[in-house]
C-alpha cells in the first residue's frame, strides 16, 4: 500500500537529510507505529505519503502509484484515498460536528444524499451520533479528536495517517482513540500512526518502525516503544506523553 524505496529527502538550506535511504513496505490493512524523537523524520515520512513533498531521491509508491510522477491535478485524487488526523484536531470552529465531517465530502463534490447517509454512519462509528449538532468548543479534547477521525475516515480512505493523534489527550482518552483507530484498521484500512506515546505503543503490540536522524533503526512486527524495555502498563506509562490539556 505504501512502499518507500531508498528514499532520501533533504530540505533546502539543510545539510542533514530529513530522511536518509529509507526502504519500507506497509502492506494493505497493516497497522504501523512510527516512533522516534522530534526531528527523526516521522513528519517528513507522512508528508511524502501525502505528496506535500517529493523525495530528493528514491521512489515513494502509494496505492501503487509513484507519487513523484503524479501530475499536480491528480494529487487531489491521491489524497482522497488518504485520511489524515493531527495532534491539534484542526476542526472548523464555526461548523458543528456534522458539518465538519460533511465538509470533507462537500469539497470533493459528493452528492447531498450521499452525505446525509454516510456522515451519520461515520459519527455512529466514532460514538458521536448524539452530538452531531455540537460545536467543537462544546466538546472535550477526546471528542474533538473523534470528530477529526470521523472526518478523515468519512470518505472510506484506504490509508489513514495519524500524526501524534493522542499528543494532546490524557491516557484514558488516548486509549479510546487508539481503540477507534484499531477498529478502523480492522475494516481493512491501512493505518500509519506517528507517536510519542509509549504506553499506547506498548499496549497495542503492533508493528513498530523506529526512526532516528532520518534512518530506520528498528522494524519489529509486534514491537515496543523502546527495544528491550519492559512493557510499561499503568499510570506511570504516560510519562512520555505531554501533559493532558483537556
Amino acid at each position: 500500500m505504501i512502499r518507500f524505496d531508498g528514499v532520501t529527502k533533504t530540505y533546502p538550506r539543510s545539510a542533514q537529510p530529513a530522511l536518509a535511504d529509507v526502504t519500507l513496505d506497509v502492506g494493505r490493512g497493516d497497522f504501523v507505529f512510527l516512533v522516534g524523537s522530534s526531528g527523526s523524520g516521522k513528519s517528513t515520512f507522512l508528508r511524502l505519503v501525502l505528496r506535500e513533498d517529493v523525495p530528493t531521491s528514491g521512489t515513494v509508491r502509494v496505492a501503487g502509484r509513484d507519487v513523484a510522477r503524479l501530475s499536480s491535478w491528480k494529487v487531489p485524487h491521491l489524497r482522497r484515498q488518504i485520511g489524515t488526523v493531527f495532534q491539534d484536531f484542526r476542526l472548523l470552529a464555526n461548523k458543528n460536528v456534522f458539518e465538519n465531517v460533511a465538509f470533507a465530502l462537500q469539497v470533493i463534490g459528493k452528492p447531498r444524499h450521499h452525505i446525509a447517509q454516510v456522515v451519520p454512519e461515520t459519527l455512529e462509528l466514532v460514538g458521536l451520533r448524539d452530538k452531531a449538532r455540537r460545536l467543537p468548543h462544546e466538546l472535550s479534547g477526546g471528542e474533538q479528536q473523534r470528530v477529526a477521525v470521523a472526518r478523515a475516515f468519512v470518505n472510506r480512505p484506504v490509508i489513514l495517517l495519524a500524526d501524534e493523534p493522542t499528543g494532546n489527550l490524557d491516557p484514558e482518552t488516548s486509549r479510546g482513540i487508539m481503540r477507534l483507530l484499531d477498529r478502523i484498521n480492522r475494516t481493512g484500512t491501512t493505518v500509519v500512526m506517528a507517536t510519542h506515546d509509549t504506553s499506547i505503543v506498548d499496549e497495542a503490540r503492533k508493528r513498530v518502525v523506529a526512526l532516528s536522524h532520518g534512518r530506520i533503526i528498528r522494524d519489529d512486527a509486534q514491537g515496543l516503544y523502546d527495544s528491550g524495555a519492559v512493557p510499561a502498563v499503568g499510570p506511570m506509562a504516560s510519562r512520555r506523553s505531554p501533559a493532558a490539556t483537556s
Partner: protein
Amino acid sequence: MRFQFVLSEILTGLRRNTAMTVSVVLVTFVSLVFVGAGALLQMQIGALKDYWYDRVEVSIFLCTDSSEAPTCIDGEVSQTQRDAVVAALQAPPLDTYVQSYEFESKAEAFARFQEQFADTTIGAAATEDQLNESYRVKLVDPTDFDVVAQYFTGTPGVEEVLDQRRLLDRFFAVLNVFTLVAGGFALVMIVAAALLIATTIRLSAFNRRRETGIMRLVGASKGVIQLPFLLEGVIAAVIGAGLASGALWAAVRYGVQGWLTSTLPLFNWISTREVFVVAPVLFGIGVLLAGVSSVVTLSRYLKV
C-alpha cells in the same frame, strides 16, 4: 452540491471581510467611472465632429477699406476681383474640392455679427463698414482646407482665408485633454484597485487557511479551493462596475440629456444609448482586473 458549496463559501468570505469588500467595490467603482467618463467624452467628441465638420466652412474674407494685408493695397475689393475669386472656385483645380459656396455681403455679415454678439459692447460698437464681405465655401472633404488657403494666398482683393475647423479643433483639443486626464486618473485608480483586490484576497486566504488546509488534505481540487476566492474578487468588481455604469447613466440622463441638451440644443449630445455601449466594456474591465489580480495572488499565497 459543489456549486452550492462554492456559493456559500463566497458569501462567508464576503461577509467576514466586509470592510475590505466594500473598499474593493468603491475603488473599482471610482476607477471605472473614470474609464467610462473618458470613453463617453471621446464618443461626445466624435459626435460633435461628425455634426460640425459637416457644417463648417472655409471663409474667404475680401478686402475692406481698412484692411492692412498686402493683397489689399488697392483698398476695397473691386467687382473684377470678386469675379476672379468666383471663377477660380468654379474652375479646375479647385472645382473638384468645392462642394458649394455662398456670398455673404457686408449687410448679411453685420446682421450675423449683431445676432452673435447681441447685448455686448462689441455688438453695439461695430459698424457695417468694419466687416468683410466673404465667400463661404463648403468643401467636399473638410480636411482639404490647405488647398483652398494656398490657392488664394496672395490673390489681390482677398484679405484672409479662414478655416472654421481650426477653431473647432482648438475646442476638441481641450476636450481631448480632459479625456487624457480622465484616462490618467483611471490608470492610477486601476492600479490601486488591482493592488487592493490582491491584498483583500491575500487576507481572505489567510483568514481561511484552516479551511483551505483541510480542503487540500481531503483532496479537494484546485478549482474548488481557489474558485471562492476568485469569485469573491470578481463579484466585488462586478458590483463596482454596476455602480460605475449606474453613475454614468445618471450623469448622462440628468446632466447631458436633462440639462445640456435643453441649454445648448445646437450641439449633438450623447445619450444614454452610449452609456449602454460603454457599460459592458466596464464590466469586462472589472472582471478582467479582478480575475487577473486574483489568479496572480492565489498562485503565490494559496498553495494547492
